[in-house]
């Protein structure tokens, strides 16, 4: 039994922020959870799935984030408590539906959990989702630590049901992927009974149809929606998760939220400023509790905003200060706008320490400067930087090898439009710098479809796109449909590595099992593409020459949109992990090394971590610990020096 459903009295566990959110939802009696994988949010749906049977939940990995919100909304419409979860980029995808949902309102409590990634530690951008709360006109909550990550969820469900609208809860990497002690509350025993009531009058929140339609009559729905926000603001004035620590009239007030509140506490404590600095930690960051803010603003002359990433609190609090200038007086503000903190990247205790040290003119040094300088000098000498690359045995390295060769042989200046997945490394040396555009999920194929139609303006080189199997269902199918319908002659490389690999092998509509491990119909991408009207070829990316030939052929001859499915499971997938197909060795006598005729193509260009250049002997060799035995490098070697023997 999972510790997440520990019902022991006074139970306490070390939980990740994401696990705490799950426990909170369980304590709130959640019924339905849906999401699309994305770091740092993916553990939430996985944790729900682990307790789905015991807690009678419906849990799914949805095709994309918009569908996840729609699935969760249906549960809410039927009076159930539901939660949808995604990383910050997912909110962009879901935003169209969210805007309409916020207009129609909800019934059963419904929460949108978004896990932002300040610093883009595992994202292609650090765009934050908080601004959506303002755009969508829905309440936003931000827990400040692990305990709160749990406690705030039942409170958010209650709020959602009070105002009959979706509530957004924002976490960040340093909460979602950090762990701390969490004290458990009781799990409810109520049995969920759902009913979608829809026969009442239009706009009746209890019994009417759930319709977002205010053509020409904004007052019908937009009015009530704004009333809901006023109500939320009122509730926020006394929210137990907005806390203040510090003196009654601090010299400086830190206004902060989320993980930044922990950095602020630590910085104040290290500098011994507890008597001079107060910390107002806000959990309700939209709409802001105006009276609470005014009270704290009035008590201090200076304010420092500590938040990630954009100056959102900073801007909104300044509006409150401006509007109440007569009551609270003129203030001095520090934060991103003043340059005391950066407006990009994630924050940490050191950045807050530096800001406070500057404001209070107190010197601060983490470690003796001479020691740090000495170790940094050693690190520069002895610790070469660690670049990212594809795993040993990764099918993408082989795929990009063939794509590069096909494009270079084709010789017409063709290029690849990249997409989101591990294969973003196609933009880097790891993928031979093959990808020349990279944006959102599915965008590579949409952009490629567009490039394919620029012939009349002189852009007539071959255009390719890459797209993973999960991405295909998520957002690339509309792009492919477009390209087929518009006769855009591009080639989609569908890199089918059997799962949503980058985030940990979550299933997608092409998978034979769902999140609970139950058998489900697996949609056949090959048949889908064919039925859509594309010319389709399938290749094993480990067969370099065949893959290259098929791709060249598609680029050369076939008209319209074409799809080359490159099918090979991820090296870390359950079906391949720990299984060596080949025993690989290097025949040193045949290795040409740096000589004319090779120049170390295996180590210098192919760059699999399992192959190491021995600078002393001037030969390549296999790192037995790293090599996973895919055997592809044997086909790279021009001298036949890399030998592979099938493992019996």
């Amino acid at each position, binding site marked *: 039994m999972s510790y997440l459903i520990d019902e022991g009295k006074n139970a306490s566990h070390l939980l990740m922020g994401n696990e705490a959110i799950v426990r909170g939802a369980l304590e709130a009696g959640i019924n339905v959870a849906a999401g699309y994988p994305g770091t740092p949010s993916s553990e939430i749906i996985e944790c729900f799935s682990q307790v789905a049977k015991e807690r009678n939940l419906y849990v799914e990995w949805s095709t994309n984030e918009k569908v996840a919100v729609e699935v969760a909304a249906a549960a809410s419409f039927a009076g159930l408590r539901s939660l949808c979860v995604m990383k910050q980029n997912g909110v962009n995808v879901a935003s169209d539906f969210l805007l309409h949902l916020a207009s129609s309102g909800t019934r059963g409590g419904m929460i949108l959990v978004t896990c932002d990634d300040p610093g883009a530690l595992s994202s292609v951008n650090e765009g934050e989702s908080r601004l959506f709360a303002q755009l969508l006109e829905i309440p936003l909550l931000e827990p400040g630590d692990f305990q709160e990550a749990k406690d705030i969820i039942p409170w958010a469900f209650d709020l959602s049901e009070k105002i009959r609208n979706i509530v957004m809860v924002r976490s960040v990497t340093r909460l979602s992927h950090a762990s701390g002690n969490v004290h458990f509350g009781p799990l409810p025993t109520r049995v969920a009974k759902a009913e979608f009531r829809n026969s009442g009058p239009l706009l009746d929140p209890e019994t009417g149809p759930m319709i977002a339609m205010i053509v020409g009559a904004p007052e019908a729905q937009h009015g009530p929606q704004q009333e809901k926000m006023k109500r939320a603001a009122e509730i926020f004035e006394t929210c137990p998760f907005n806390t203040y620590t510090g003196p009654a009239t601090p010299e400086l007030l830190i206004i902060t939220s989320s993980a930044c509140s922990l950095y602020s506490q630590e910085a104040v404590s290290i500098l011994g400023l507890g008597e001079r600095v107060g910390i107002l930690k806000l959990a309700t960051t939209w709409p802001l509790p105006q009276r609470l803010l005014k009270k704290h603003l009035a008590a201090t002359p200076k304010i420092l905003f500590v938040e990630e990433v954009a100056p959102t609190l900073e801007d909104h609090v300044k509006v409150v200060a401006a509007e109440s200038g007569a009551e609270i007086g003129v203030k001095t503000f520090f934060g991103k706008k003043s340059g005391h903190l950066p407006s990009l990247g994630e924050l940490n*205790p*050191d950045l807050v320490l530096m800001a406070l040290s500057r404001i209070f003119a107190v010197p601060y040094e983490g470690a003796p400067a001479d020691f740090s300088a000495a170790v940094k000098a050693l690190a520069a000498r002895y610790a070469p930087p660690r670049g990212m690359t594809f795993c040993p045995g990764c099918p993408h390295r082989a795929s990009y090898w063939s794509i590069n060769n096909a494009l270079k042989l084709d010789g017409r200046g063709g290029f690849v439009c990249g997409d989101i997945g591990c294969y973003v490394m196609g933009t880097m040396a790891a993928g031979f710098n093959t990808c020349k555009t990279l944006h959102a999920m599915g965008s590579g194929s949409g952009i490629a479809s567009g490039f394919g139609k620029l012939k009349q303006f002189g852009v007539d080189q071959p255009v390719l796109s890459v797209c993973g199997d999960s991405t295909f269902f998520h957002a690339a199918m509309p792009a492919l449909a477009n390209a087929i319908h518009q006769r855009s002659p591009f080639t989609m490389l569908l890199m089918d590595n059997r799962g949503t690999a980058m985030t940990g092998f979550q299933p997608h509509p092409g998978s034979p099992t769902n999140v609970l491990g139950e058998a489900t119909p697996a949609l056949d991408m090959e048949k889908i593409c064919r039925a859509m009207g594309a010319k389709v070829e399938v290749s094993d990316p480990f067969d370099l020459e065949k893959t290259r030939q098929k791709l060249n052929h598609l680029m050369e001859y076939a008209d319209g949109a074409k799809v080359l499915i490159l099918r090979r499971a991820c090296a870390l997938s359950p079906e391949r992990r720990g299984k060596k197909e080949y025993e690989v060795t290097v025949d040193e006598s045949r290795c040409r090394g740096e000589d004319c005729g090779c120049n170390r193509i295996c180590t210098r260009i192919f760059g699999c971590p399992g192959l190491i250049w021995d600078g002393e002997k001037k030969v390549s060799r296999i790192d037995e610990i790293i090599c996973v035995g895919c055997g592809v490098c044997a086909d790279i070697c021009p001298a036949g020096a890399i030998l592979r023997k099938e493992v019996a």
Partner: protein
Amino acid sequence: MSDVKLAKDPYNVIITGVGGQGNVLVARLLGGMLAKKGFLVAIGETFGASQRGGSVMSHLRISRLAVASPQIPRGRADVIVSLEPAEALRVLALYGNPGTMLLTNSHPIYPVGVIKGELVYPPVAEMEAAITQILPTAYFIDATARALALGNSILVNIVMLGALGRLNVVPFNREDFQEAIALRLATGQLAINLKAFDEGYGMV
């Protein structure tokens, strides 16, 4: 609650290594053992790039007083446990101070730049000599060799955890480990992990 005293509060431990070495598991095992003893524990992890050969690092904060931030301020690590020597040095440069205790595996995992021949990874013995010149308490052990001798390089993280147990700076012991690992692994794997722990324990 045990009455073990912490040398400092919060006591700051960093577990570092390269993606795929089992760094996260060590941090969580350790955190779980300490939480069970009644400490307030915060663990901050960076593992987004972990599966792609990147550096990974977990910050472990142990306190009797308050929840600490999941990021240790620069220069304030009390113990650094590293599954890879270059990572040890990298982390020491940012988070170390002259009083930091360093425990590292001496078996290198070459960065892709080194594999490609673009960068040089100097001999670890040279690095060790240079570090011990400026850091009084630094331990280099070949945990990888020991793990391989046990039959699987994946055990390197447990060997290192055993060595940390011997250093007696973080309040946990073999029984705590046994209890913690039993919660996470199938019973069949228990014996080999305990063996790895014991091997590590004997290495410092």
